[in-house]
């Protein structure tokens, strides 16, 4: 960086890369977040991609975005609006400008703003900057495509391959804007394209060209920003998405429990990456079966569980509908099973690539009969690891199916993940039937936690039959006895109620808050950021974010009744609020509900909460 350049320090910044689905925006965003995380910034990312695989090039429906929030101190969300918007074509500018702050820096590729491009993006005039009401001084307009072609003209690459490197030029420019060390990006590319040295070299060349272009052409007009690192937790880190963290959590739990990991699944957005991730790791003994349908995904996992595996099935909302009957079978068989629901917009096919919390009541109650099932909702992309581990532990130790709720926002979003040390995680001890019960054991005999013992096929002397028909409490034989059925329903319910979960923590002004914000699962970051903003403005606010939904933490009632005003904020029309009202006598909260398929917007939350305050 030249010395005469003015460098401004920032606390945090949001960058949004946008372009056609095929423009490589996710990769550019990923590299930028990794580069930032490597220097110790806090990061949170959110890919926002269309349902179409490849919508027509340059069309409004085909725009894909990747938002990165980097901060000197902890960032909780990918940010509401961006400080820098990269728009690789006219359609991207048209659709994504609404996500930009009014003073945002806009980077555009003028080569993709020709008349035909403007028409496809439904601009009315050729002066698109004025038409969008953008301050021209905030625009870095560069003939990006031309420059990339120039840069690689001697590379021997074909035009199509050259054009694929456009994203790296934009990345180089953004790296210049934020004074980023390119070496880290280069190393990332060298590793990513370890087997294609030519591709790595071309990409590196283009990043450098983008950086140099910014430095040489725009230094006079633009400030360069620097995000220092204020809060650091020393350690080794990697970037991880929620779906990958979930997969890792399952792998870790299986290893800890000494069991084989089995995943029965059927591809469905946005859960499929869990299937992809686990399918890679056969060298760890992970078995994935891509089944003929969602039902078989869950059913085969029950078979695997019967045979002694840590069994899981992964899906999203519509898949849960299909799995419900089999999930209920696992309830009555009392076999361990982790059911992952990466929630998306519903009902029916709904908004497959978008995020909601609308499956909560389905997870809790969407089955026939009295069907108690633990439900855990992960709080953040990295928390998906712990949540998956804990879901597995509860399933195995309490012989029950467990629903793990994440969503598109968590599953696709990423954050820096401090490498966990498995030795620090609690042991997982499934209740294998003790040998001394040989001859006395029956399938529904329970231990002191009301948990039925596990006898895995292959073990001599413990042959037995399980089934979907109600069983006699003592003998395990089929029973339609009314008293027995009542007893078994109560025992299954009590078994779940007895599961120990940690108390819900109150953050913020926990002693004297005027307003308690209550949420569950993935909204943690946004609600936390909203609380921080209100407290910074002098308000007394606290947050209780629930991860354990069933059973609820023991201190739930105490926490909810302690504060004068309580607002339950969730991305559905009031499912958690209704559930809490059912569980906590006399609890009547205010509500904030939104079902837009997008993560909450912190400023909207603050505005709404201020009205309630």
């Amino acid at each position, binding site marked *: 960086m030249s010395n005469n350049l003015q460098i401004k320090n920032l606390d945090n910044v949001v960058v949004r890369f946008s372009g056609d689905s095929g423009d490589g925006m996710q990769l550019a965003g990923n590299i930028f977040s990794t580069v930032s995380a490597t220097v110790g910034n806090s990061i949170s990312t959110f890919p926002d991609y269309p349902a179409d695989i490849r919508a027509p090039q340059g069309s409004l429906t085909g725009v894909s975005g990747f938002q990165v929030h980097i901060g000197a101190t902890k960032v909780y969300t990918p940010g509401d609006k961006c400080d820098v918007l990269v728009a690789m074509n006219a359609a991207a500018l048209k659709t994504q400008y609404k996500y930009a702050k009014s003073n945002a820096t806009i980077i555009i590729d003028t080569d993709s703003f020709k008349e035909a491009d403007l028409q496809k993006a439904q601009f009315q005039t050729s002066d698109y900057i004025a038409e969008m009401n953008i301050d021209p001084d905030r625009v870095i307009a560069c003939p990006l495509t031309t420059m990339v072609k120039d840069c690689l003209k001697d590379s021997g690459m074909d035009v199509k391959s050259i054009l694929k490197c456009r994203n790296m030029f934009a990345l180089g420019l953004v790296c210049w804007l934020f004074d980023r060390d390119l070496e880290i990006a280069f190393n990332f590319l060298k590793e990513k394209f370890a087997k294609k040295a030519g591709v790595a070299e071309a990409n590196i060349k283009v990043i450098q060209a983008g950086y140099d272009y910014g430095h040489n052409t725009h230094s006079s007009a633009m400030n360069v920003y620097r995000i220092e690192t204020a809060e650091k937790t020393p350690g080794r880190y990697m970037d991880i998405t929620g779906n990958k963290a979930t997969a890792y959590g399952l792998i870790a739990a299986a*290893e800890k429990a000494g069991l084989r990991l089995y995943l029965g699944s059927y591809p469905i957005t946005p859960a499929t990456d869990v299937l992809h991730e686990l399918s890679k790791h056969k060298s760890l003994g992970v*078995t994935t079966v891509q089944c003929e349908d969602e039902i078989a995904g869950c059913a085969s996992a*029950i*078979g*695997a569980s*019967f045979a*002694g595996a840590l069994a899981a099935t992964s899906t999203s909302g519509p898949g849960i509908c299909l799995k419900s009957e089999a999930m209920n079978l696992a309830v009555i068989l009392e076999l361990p099973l982790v059911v992952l629901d990466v929630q998306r917009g519903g009902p029916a096919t709904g908004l497959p690539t978008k995020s909601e919390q609308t499956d909560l009541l389905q997870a809790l109650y969407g089955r026939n009969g009295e069907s108690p099932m633990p439900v855990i909702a992960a709080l953040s992309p990295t928390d998906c690891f712990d949540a998956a581990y804990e879901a597995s532990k509860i399933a195995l130790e309490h012989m029950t199916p467990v629903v793990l709720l994440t969503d598109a926002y968590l599953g696709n979003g990423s954050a820096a993940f401090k490498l966990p040390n498995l030795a620090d995680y609690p042991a997982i001890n499934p209740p294998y039937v003790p040998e001394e019960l040989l001859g006395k054991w029956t399938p529904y005999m329970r231990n002191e936690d009301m948990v039925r013992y596990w006898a895995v096929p*292959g073990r001599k002397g413990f042959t037995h039959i399980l*089934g*979907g028909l109600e069983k006699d409490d003592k003998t395990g034989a089929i029973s339609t006895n009314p008293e027995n059925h009542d007893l078994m329903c109560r025992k299954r319910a009590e078994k779940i109620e007895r599961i120990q979960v940690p108390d819900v923590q109150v953050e913020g002004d926990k002693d004297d808050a005027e307003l308690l914000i209550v949420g569950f699962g993935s909204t943690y970051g946004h609600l936390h950021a909203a609380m921080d903003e209100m407290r910074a403005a002098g308000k007394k606010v606290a947050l209780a974010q629930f991860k354990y939904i069933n059973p609820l933490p023991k201190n739930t009632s105490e926490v909810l009744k302690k504060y004068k005003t309580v607002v339950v904020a969730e991305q559905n029309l009031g499912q958690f609020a209704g559930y809490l009202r059912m569980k906590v006598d006399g609890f009547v909260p205010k509500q904030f509900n939104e079902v837009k398929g997008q993560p909450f917007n912190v400023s909207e939350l603050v505005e709404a909460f201020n009205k309630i305050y």
Partner: protein
Amino acid sequence: MEYTINDFKKGQPRWCPGCGDHFFLAALQKTMAEIGVAPEDTAVISGIGCSSRLPHYMATYGMNTIHGRAAAIATGCKVTNPKLSVWQISGDGDGLAIGGNHFIHANRRNIDLKMILLNNRIYGLTKGQYSPTSPRGFVSKSSPYGTVEDPFRPAELCFGARGHFFARAVATDAPGTAEILKAAHAHKGAAVCEILQNCVIFNNGTHDSVYKPDVRKKNAIYLKHGEKMVFGENNEFGLVQDGFSIKVVKIGENGYTLDDVLVHDAHCEDNTLQLKLALMEGPDFPIALGVIRDVEAPTYDEAVNAQIEELKTQKKYHNFSELLETNDIWEVK
């Protein structure tokens, strides 16, 4: 270790007197004892229906699950522990209607399941509705004026799904049943055994043409690999090629001799003729019993586990902490 039928027996069956399930159960228990796989290494997994009660009467590991899903559940069980001998018990409704998808995919994958299809062409447990194997025009409680749809022919479905093993027996024919069960056990891969059984209450007489030994001689043919396809009280009939098809001839008449009679080849990979045999029905043809198709092919469970073992030797990470190290990692100091 030697086992007896008592090592596999449990409880008191609650099927109607005369139900074909009783006969089949006895044959299965006896055959399992003869096969000699330990009860604790055997899992019997059923769906829902009269016949799906069967695992309750087996002293093995067992699951009586939900309607139609037995094949899927058995798949997870077998993949997880390939050492288990896994038997799937389904009726025609369980296996071919609600569970039709799992039936075809288990065959396509060729997972090593012994898939027993107890075919009485009726829904018994729900008290008498037509099933996907009931013939067109079948009158039942849900089709008082006769069905207007054609039935599945299980063999056709199995073959269409690339099934490698199909055998058929009559429930009342203990030796015939034992023979195909043993062959199914010996076969590595999905092995469909269609058991023709009577429902005395709702579909009495549906398999009458082959149910009793005397008529069976006349109306059925026992197929044995490598043997001439002859049948009749004195083996006086045979199957011969007829252009692109097959036909029944009386040996010694119209110039046909024993030399003209086809020899059964259950191991032939091409299933064309096997399918013809499997689809034969009266009155022009005998019903084929025995092992109709038995072709070796790679099994899913073995392939899944072989791939895992192979990758364990190829990949450099073998536990969770080594897995973490395969990522791009940075250090914050």
